[in-house]
């Protein structure tokens, strides 16, 4: 694991730490929201494109379906586990527990992207199709979380109707990820070459600036988190560890390579802070947004970026190793 922890001193992570430190010290440092959103679009387009190009190179294989199946199963099952833990140990009501559970069943694009960078740096690049798995895992947990929450509501008030399904399935980040993946598939290596300078060379630098902003956002949110009890903070660390371990197990079982197993662990261990919060505001407005954003963004995300990724990676190394 010592090798993994070296990654803590890569500029990517250090910029995250810088952002968090600045926010804790109440510096007025801030990245304009439009720029941060632009960076996040760029990162998603880039990761989608590269995944598509890679799959075009390596060809389709049964592994893809195995990975997709494992990802789908994880994102449907993990919310049940999380829900139970949040209800009993976390002492949350069913509505808040359902909302938070949806976050932990879903995934965080930036955690994945950071993980891929670190894995690639260690010579363990995950397969290109993991991007498709990522996109696949973004939304199913929303449905499970809502069903779990609904039992706590008087009527069927927890459905957002049409709007919700569109909002969820056609969430901007899912569309951009899958769209870029398909464009990468169509374009292939040759078609990608002319746009590679922007999407490849600039990638890590842009990730630094984006993580600077994520550090600022996460730390500011932690400072303002009033609803976060100690028990919930503990769960925000425990859930990723357990989910990530299950992800690594699932990946090993279906026979993926080490890098892809680690990536599946990272996906399972990560918690959404884009697609799911937006869906919850719409479909479950009674849930406390301050709470689920504090857990996923202010605790789980920093944990994963710093300690979680090296842990899942080390675990994958032990499990898959010959």
């Amino acid at each position, binding site marked *: 694991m010592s090798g993994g922890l070296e990654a803590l001193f890569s500029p990517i992570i250090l910029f995250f730490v810088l952002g968090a430190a600045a926010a804790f010290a109440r510096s007025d440092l801030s990245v304009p929201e439009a720029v*941060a959103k632009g960076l996040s679009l760029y990162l998603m387009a880039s990761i989608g494109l590269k995944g598509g190009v890679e799959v075009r190179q390596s060809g389709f294989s049964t592994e893809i379906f195995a990975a997709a199946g494992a990802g789908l199963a994880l994102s449907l099952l993990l919310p049940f586990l999380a829900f139970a833990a949040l209800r009993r140990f976390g002492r949350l009501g069913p509505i808040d527990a359902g909302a938070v559970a949806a976050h932990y069943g879903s995934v965080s694009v930036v955690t994945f992207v950071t993980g891929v960078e670190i894995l690639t740096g260690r010579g363990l690049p995950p397969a290109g199709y993991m991007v498709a798995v990522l996109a696949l895992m973004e939304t199913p947990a929303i449905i499970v979380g809502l069903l779990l929450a609904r039992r706590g509501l008087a009527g069927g008030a927890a459905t957002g109707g049409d709007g919700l399904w569109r909002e969820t399935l056609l969430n901007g980040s899912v569309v951009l990820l899958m769209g870029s993946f398909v464009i990468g598939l169509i374009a292939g290596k040759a078609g990608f070459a002319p746009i590679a300078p922007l999407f490849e060379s600039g990638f890590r630098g842009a990730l630094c600036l984006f993580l600077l902003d994520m550090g600022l956002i996460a730390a500011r949110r932690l400072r303002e988190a009033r609803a976060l009890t100690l028990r919930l903070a503990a769960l925000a660390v425990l859930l990723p560890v357990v989910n990530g371990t299950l992800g690594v197990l699932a990946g090993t079982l279906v026979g993926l390579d080490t890098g892809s197993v680690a990536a599946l662990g990272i996906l399972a261990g990560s918690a959404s802070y884009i697609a799911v919060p937006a869906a919850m*505001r719409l479909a479950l407005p009674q849930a406390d947004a301050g709470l689920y954003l504090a857990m996923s963004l202010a605790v789980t995300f920093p944990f994963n970026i710093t300690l979680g990724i090296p842990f899942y990676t080390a675990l994958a190394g032990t499990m898959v190793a010959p």
Partner: protein
Amino acid sequence: MITTFRRQKIEILVDAPLVRRVAAAAAGVGIVHYTLVPTLGGVGARGAWSDDQVTGAEAKVLFVAVTGEEKAEALATALAPLLDSHGLMLMIGPVEVVRGEKF
């Protein structure tokens, strides 16, 4: 000296993804013209929020419509259930407009 007409200005602070629903409710009571004004953040009974575009979970928008007293009340009544459940804030204030037939 131009003639002015007394109307009501309704302002509704609403989560960005819910704007469509508020617009639909407004259309339901005959209010079809409106303007959207951005906001930066705030503090309410549910705590503080600020519009970071990265999560996008917390952006709120001011839905502003100028209309007659009756329609204004009808919209307030129609939205009442949402005010609590979705954490909207609704204000109605008096304004004078010219071209009263438009509002």
